[in-house]
């Protein structure tokens, strides 16, 4: 579903991502971990079309994010690491608005908004302005907005910021459920134990280079698990 082929990006003299290649199958949860400044967010921003890669290709199914950005963007949902939303809209209005941007019809949009608000436990504040939301509620709303158009892939930057333990558990269950229904999920995170718990494969990136990719089974065999591997790699 998602493939990156020899993707590179430099800012001035600094190479943020170098020759990155990977692919994510339908239904797979792929985690990208690495130290601060390793290139995780740059990779995600290129995947979402916020940055244009200097070289290489990023494809969602048959659509290239640079050549056919509108078709590619229509196929994924994105959850950024900072929960900036339209403060003067209500949660329900935001979901309707996002659904409209993706061309979802009125009936399905209303149905999806109600279902997702309930799924993420924020239906009771669905008609309140977002400006009064806590960080956890915003994070839940971000996820709902990323799923309102029923995408084939989900890109997530630091998924568990600001969530309480109940929120984290709910979200893990939702991610697993989406994956079981065939959605490809790419997440960039610092939370090693969560990546180890829910990802089918984990990629390690350091100084812009993808060092290795390990399957969940391989990680279990490594001494100290993912954390031990991460510390040795750093």
């Amino acid at each position, binding site marked *: 579903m998602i493939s990156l082929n020899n993707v590179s990006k430099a800012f001035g003299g600094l190479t943020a991502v170098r020759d990155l290649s990977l692919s994510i199958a339908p239904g797979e949860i792929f985690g990208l971990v690495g130290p601060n400044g390793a290139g995780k967010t740059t990779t995600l921003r290129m995947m979402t079309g916020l940055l244009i890669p200097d070289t290489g290709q990023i494809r969602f199914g048959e659509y290239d994010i640079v050549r056919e*950005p509108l*078709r590619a963007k229509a196929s994924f949902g994105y959850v950024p690491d900072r929960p900036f939303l*339209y403060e003067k*809209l209500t949660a329900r209005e935001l979901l309707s*608005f996002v659904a*409209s941007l993706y*061309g979802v019809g009125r009936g399905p949009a209303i149905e999806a908004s109600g279902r997702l608000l309930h799924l993420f436990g924020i239906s009771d504040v669905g008609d309140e*302005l977002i*400006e009064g939301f806590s960080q956890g509620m915003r994070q839940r709303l971000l996820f709902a907005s990323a799923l309102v158009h029923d995408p084939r892939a989900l890109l997530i930057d630091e998924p568990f910021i600001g969530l309480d333990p109940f929120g984290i558990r709910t979200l893990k269950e939702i991610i697993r459920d989406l994956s079981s229904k065939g959605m490809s999920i790419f997440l960039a995170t610092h939370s090693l134990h969560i990546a180890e718990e829910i990802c089918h494969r984990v990629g390690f990136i350091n100084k812009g280079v993808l060092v290795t990719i390990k399957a969940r089974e391989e990680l279990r065999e490594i001494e100290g698990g993912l954390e031990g591997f991460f510390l040795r790699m750093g």
Partner: protein
Amino acid sequence: MLLMRPRFLSLKNSLTAGILLRRLPFIAIGAAFCWSLYLGMDYLLTFIRDAGFAGEIISESLFSMIFSGLFFFLILSGIVTSLSSFYMSADIRFFLSKPIPLTCVLRLKLSEALLDSSWMVLVFMPPVFIAYGLRYDAPALYYGIVAAGLAMVILIAGGIGAAAAHLLTRLFPARRSRDAFLGIALLLFVVLYFIFRSSLPAGPGDPEEMLNSFMRFRSDSRLLPGYWMTEAVFPVLRGLRPGLSGLAVLVGCSVFSLLAASLAGRYLFLRNIGRLQPSADVPGRSPLSRCFPRRWAALFYKDAIIFFRDTGQWSQILVIAALIAIYLHNLRSIPFDLLLAITPFVREVMLLVNMLMSGLILTAVAARFLFPLVSLEGEAFWVIRTAPVPAARLLWSKLVYGSIPVTVLITALVLAADVIMDIQGPLHWASLATSLMLCVSVSGLGIGMGAIYPKFRHAGIASVSVSMGSMAFMVIAFALVMATLALETWIYYLWETGRGAHTFTVAMSVCALTLVILLNGAAFFLPMKIGAERLYKFT
């Protein structure tokens, strides 16, 4: 000073050669504006002083009025910036959590508010005072006293603004007090204007009465810094010793004003901060709010909903409405019948002046409402940026959303002015067509330039509309208005005077009209095209 370091260091770090080079066009536009301000003031002073004794009095009154006007502007600006600086800035909780005495934090925030509220005055007013100095052949002492006086006026107004901000926040939460303040400011402005307007004669028919009213205005304003400033400075312009009493009052008042701000801050700031919590407003449940229209209409609909919920946006319409009411009131009081006896072209001249004024209002309204439209997406812009929405569609949606009210407003203004001035026939239709064309081209220019110079991290619409990009837009938009009107006036002149052969007149008219259409077309399409290309490059 330690607390100011982050700001100084940020400024130092942003002063790279690359950034300076990028801002060079803005600096050039600003310099050109200052130069034209100097030339205009110099011309006005020459014209006024040619009137002999009366001219001297008018010149002195004008000086006093400039400072009084500045004083009111600085107070209004001071309240808004103090509210932002003391109660809405991102670093306030950081400083309050550190072992720093409260007085230091208050001093820092007051300094920030003083700087933010007065930078435009400090940048754009020197040409006016230099014109006075050069026209009067003043000694160096004049410049020193004007600079010191201006600094004290800024301190007085800033102190009053900060104290008022603390008091207003005591009465309302910070965001609402800023909105309430806009209403108060508007009321104050209109009342002051009508008091001033009623103290002047309706027209230039009675020069003696006009002179008396200028003198009355000055003596009525003994409690304003403009009067003290004039008392201190004008003797120096005339080659005498400075008026020490005026200077002493300025110094005393600035100290008192700062003390008042400091006391208000000390007693109210922490109490006010404790009251500021985010509210969970539940807007009225409208069936429409759940049904967004599809695609680009959804962008339009979203902007409209946010506009009506964000009082910071719509409350400024009141200010514009007041300005237009004042303008039309002014126009109505001009004795056209009397002036027609002096020159037969008075209606045509007044029509041109009205079109220029409408162009100025269009430029100001567009800078306030159209230029910031893209930036108003703020940090939530990623929602659109990552959705399958082309940049061009976004800009066209903004254009439709912004240009309709602006076009209605300006066309209504031109129509009302035409009725007041009794303009009929081809001139009436030409004025309407011109205003429509300018509305469309200036709207495109505003939305396009707003996309070329977006500012997604901002503290509100006001901070976007006073950015460098906005200033550049205003200058370019007004230049477009002037060029359009100059070409059209030339066509009218050719036909009305009947000079030259008929074919020559026709050929020149066609050329001028083509140029008008090309200019407006370029002003509309080029920024929209470049804006659409550049917008998605910003991240």
